[in-house]
Structures are given as C-alpha cells and as structure tokens.
C-alpha cells in the first residue's frame, strides 16, 4: 500500500506534529510519501527528507501554496491522489481546512481526528468532545484521514529520503491571502510543548497571567488557558486548551485556577501527569489530577516559581 502524508510546515521549518502523523501512517503500514507544498520552502523540504519511515518527499514550491490556501492545496493533493490508498494530514487548523475539500473532490468520506489505527480501514476517533470513543470503518477504496497527534508518538529524524521536485501549479484563483497576525512568542508551541501551564478564570485578569511566565521559563513550558479565561477576555483565543481550542497531551500539565469543565478536560486529559492548583477542593479538575493542591493560586505560584 502507498500512503501520502501532507506535511505541516511554515515554509522554513517542519512542524513537530508531522512526525506524529507519519507515525500514524506507519501503523497503517505501507510506503510513505511526504508532500511539502509551500513557497520558498527548501528548509522544510530538507527537514522532511530526514523524517524516519518516509521513502520519498514530494517538494512543490510555488507562490500558490505560500499560505496553504485550501482551494489551491486541495487541488494539488487531489491531482496526486491516484497513486495512494491512504491520504493523511495532521488535524491542526491547516489540515482541517483543506482535507475535507480533498475528500469531497475524490468523492470519498473523511475520517477526522483519528487517535488510533485498528487496521488499514478501521480507525478510532473521539466523538462528543471525547466523551465517547468511536471505532469507524471506512468503506471507500481511498481513505482520507486527519490525525489527532496526541494519540501518536513522534518518529525520529535521522532518515534520508529521496526528494522529488514537482512543478505542478494548481491555483484555483478564487481566494487570496490578505494578512496574518501571529502571536510572537519565545515559548514552545502549545501542541509541541512537553510541559504546559494553563490559567483559568481563577486568574482574575489578563495581567495575572504574568505569574505563569516565570514558571513557564523555568520549565520550558507553553502557556495555555481555559475557555472561561478566553471568554472573559484575559488572553487571546489561540491560547485556548479544550474541545473548542487546542488538544494537548504533554508530559506535564499544570492547571491553575481552572475548575475543570468537560470542555477543558477534553483538551488535556491525555496528558501524562496532571497537576491542579485550585482553592476549591470540590473543583472537578481534582478528579483527573495526579497531584492536586488546594490553595490560593496567588500564594502558590510565586512559591512554586521560587522552588523550581
């Protein structure tokens, strides 16, 4: 069998989640090709060629793919699809955007957000915000799949795949990129960090999120937030961890002033170790936490920072 994996990248580097999507492809089993479609994306192509388990990298470098516009990328993937039984993308905002277009153009269903592979046509995925787990069989001859990376480990990057340059240009001409407003941060990505510290409504305001900075610096952690904190306007939405935000599964997750609503738990309950800091001993977060401490976060945070 042949599998096409579409790489997540920002033209200059390959996103760590792609390594996990390749792992999902290995579990399906078959010859794995990694597609890097972008613009001035040689660095991402170089990184892709080192991903273990990949036999071939398709490099498609054209302005039409610079911003991963779904209209253009989906046409490219559809053109390449004939050679593959499985087409995989990472279930991040880019893959979620273009992949259903690919499925519809190929006239097949998509299996979204898989967290496990049972066989080459049967996959496991969360439904109802992770409150139920479905096992789904695809009846289509071609499988179009997005992969939730928290379910898979990253593959190593000491491989040496052949790079094939494509000059296919698929520009639908119906959409154009206007601007990006990206959060600039020295910290690791929420999705890739091995430690995440998140604040909730208990933080009381946006300024108090600074209390998390020192701890995040010491632990090399990403900073997240609950939906309550986002809705209250404390922090921007791209920090949101939960059903409607980012799904994370770091080695260590520290929930500060977060009560633990179902919608938040859906985004972090697969973390290896969960720590909860909350002054309400009845908060549901304590039911999933490995270590809980019932105390005022405004006392605990400075002390924790000084003792790390």
């Amino acid at each position, binding site marked *: 069998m042949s599998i096409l994996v579409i790489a997540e990248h920002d033209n200059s580097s390959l996103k760590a989640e792609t390594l996990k999507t390749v792992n999902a492809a290995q579990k399906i089993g078959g010859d794995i090709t990694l597609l890097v479609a972008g613009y001035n994306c040689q660095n991402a192509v170089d990184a892709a060629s080192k991903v273990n388990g990949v036999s071939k990298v398709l490099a498609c470098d054209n302005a039409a793919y610079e*911003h991963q*516009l*779904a*209209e253009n990328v*989906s046409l490219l993937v559809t053109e390449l699809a004939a050679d593959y039984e499985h087409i995989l993308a990472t279930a991040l*905002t*880019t893959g*979620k*955007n273009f*992949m*259903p*277009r690919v*499925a*519809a153009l190929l006239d*097949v*269903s*998509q*299996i*979204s*957000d898989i967290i496990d592979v049972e066989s080459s046509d*049967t996959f496991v995925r969360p*439904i*109802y915000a992770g*409150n*139920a*787990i*479905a*096992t*789904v*069989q695809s*009846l*289509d001859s071609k499988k179009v799949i997005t992969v939730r990376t928290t379910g898979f480990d990253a593959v190593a990057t000491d491989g040496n795949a052949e790079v094939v340059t494509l000059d296919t240009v698929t520009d639908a001409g*119906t*959409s154009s*990129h*206007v601007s*990006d407003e*990206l959060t600039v941060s020295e910290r690791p*990505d929420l999705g890739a960090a091995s*430690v995440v510290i998140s604040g909730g409504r208990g933080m009381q305001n946006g300024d108090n999120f600074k209390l998390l900075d020192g701890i995040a610096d010491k632990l090399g952690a990403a900073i997240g937030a609950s*939906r309550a904190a986002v809705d209250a306007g404390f922090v921007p*939405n*791209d920090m949101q961890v939960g059903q*409607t935000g980012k799904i994370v599964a770091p080695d*260590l997750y520290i929930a500060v002033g977060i009560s633990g609503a*179902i919608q938040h738990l859906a985004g972090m*309950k697969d973390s*290896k*170790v969960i720590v909860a800091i909350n002054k309400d*001993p009845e908060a549901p977060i304590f039911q*999933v*936490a*490995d*270590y*809980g*401490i019932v*105390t005022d976060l405004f006392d*605990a945070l400075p002390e*924790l920072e000084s003792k*790390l």
Partner: protein
Amino acid sequence: MKVLVPIKRVIDYNVKVRVKPDQSNVDLANTKMAINPFCEIAVEEAVRLKEAGTATEVIAISIGDKSCQEQLRTALALGADRAIQIETDENLDALNIAKLLKKVVEEEQPQLVILGKQSIDSDNNQTGQMLAALTGMPQGTFASVVKVEGEKVNVTREIDGGLQTVALNLPAIVTTDLRLNEPRYASLPNIMKAKRKPLAVKSAADFGIDLTARTKLLKVTPPAQRQAGIVVESVDELVEKLKNEAKVIS
C-alpha cells in the same frame, strides 16, 4: 444578497452523553436536543448581515427527520426569513449532507453560505469544506470576522498561532468559530412570529443522489477514565513529588 445557513439538531451542549450498554452508539433517548452551538452563531451572523443591509434574505436549512423542524423554528425566531427541511431518517455522512446542500445551493443561488465549523456530536469539521469543494467555491473556515466588501468577502480565521485574513470571491462558504459573535436570545414575539414563517419540506430521496453510507460505525465506548491522584499539602511536597515520583521535572 441571499444567505443560506445549514443547521444541525444535536444533543444540548450541557447534557453529558451516555454510551449504550451494547456499545452500538450513544444513547440519545429522551435527551434534550438543541441547535448546534456553531450553527447558532452562523444564524446570528447571517441575521446581522441582513440587519446591516448587506443580506436581503436568510434561509435556514436542516437535514433530518421531522424533529429538526424544532431547530429550524428556532432559526426563524432568531431572524431567518424562511426554512427548508430535507427529510430523511438516515444519519447521513458529511459528504452526503454536502451533496444535498449543493443541490439546494444550485436552486437558491446564495452569495454566501454560512455553516458552523463542526457539530458537537460527530465532531467531524467537514461539511462546509466539502460543500465548498463540490460547488467550486472558496472557503473561509473558523471565522472570527466576516466582512462583505463588493464582490468579495474578507474572512479573518482562527488558526494555530493566531489569526489569518483571506479574501474570497463571492459566492463563498464561511464556517464559524466561537468568537464570531454572541447569538441573541429569541424574544417571545419573535418565537410567535416564527410559527407563521414559511417552512418547506422536501424529501432527500427526491434529489436523485446516491446517499449510501461510506463509513460504518463499529462500536462506541466510553473514554478511559483517569484515576484521581493525591492531594498534596504544600508546594514543597508538590515539587518533591514531581521530581522524584512522577519524574517530569529535574
């Protein structure tokens, strides 16, 4: 310009789902149902476009059995002008939903179709993008700002790491994210008025589309439960446990 808003009837987001003992699916018997929250945001956005004078007519559509008329009446009470129900007893895949919607798009010729980015039951996040592909329209998914400007619509999208704004030729597809707007509550007079607004019923079978399911649900199980851990007494104890027991910090 006409705006089409496809909506879905789903379990109320406050209700905790239960898995059936035979693992065939979740148990929705006697469960409170509601309009999918993202679809409600889509209705609100369409109604605001009409109030701003940009849209001339807002049409709500839902695909399902007769019970989804309840959610269509909600959309009418929120300000949609008329509604269409495509009747089917089947639980259709997103691709088949998109194929039916494509037929309606061809008939109604909307300039904008606004959908929720995903439904909170199947969590697929597919229908809008699939409809865009089938109709050849551009798409602005996970929208937090929608601005119609002449022959284009500018959509600001919630992406990993921040926001992205794209310009789409009309007609176009938009899918909503949470922060696009805060839906209004339907007033009692508007609920009464909604009962008299037109609601057309069509049969899915009449569209001449092969609606065979492409996926098979083999089983549904409850998620693995996490065991509650221990409560520590001090920050010192916490740091000690993380270092020596969990070994996640050094």
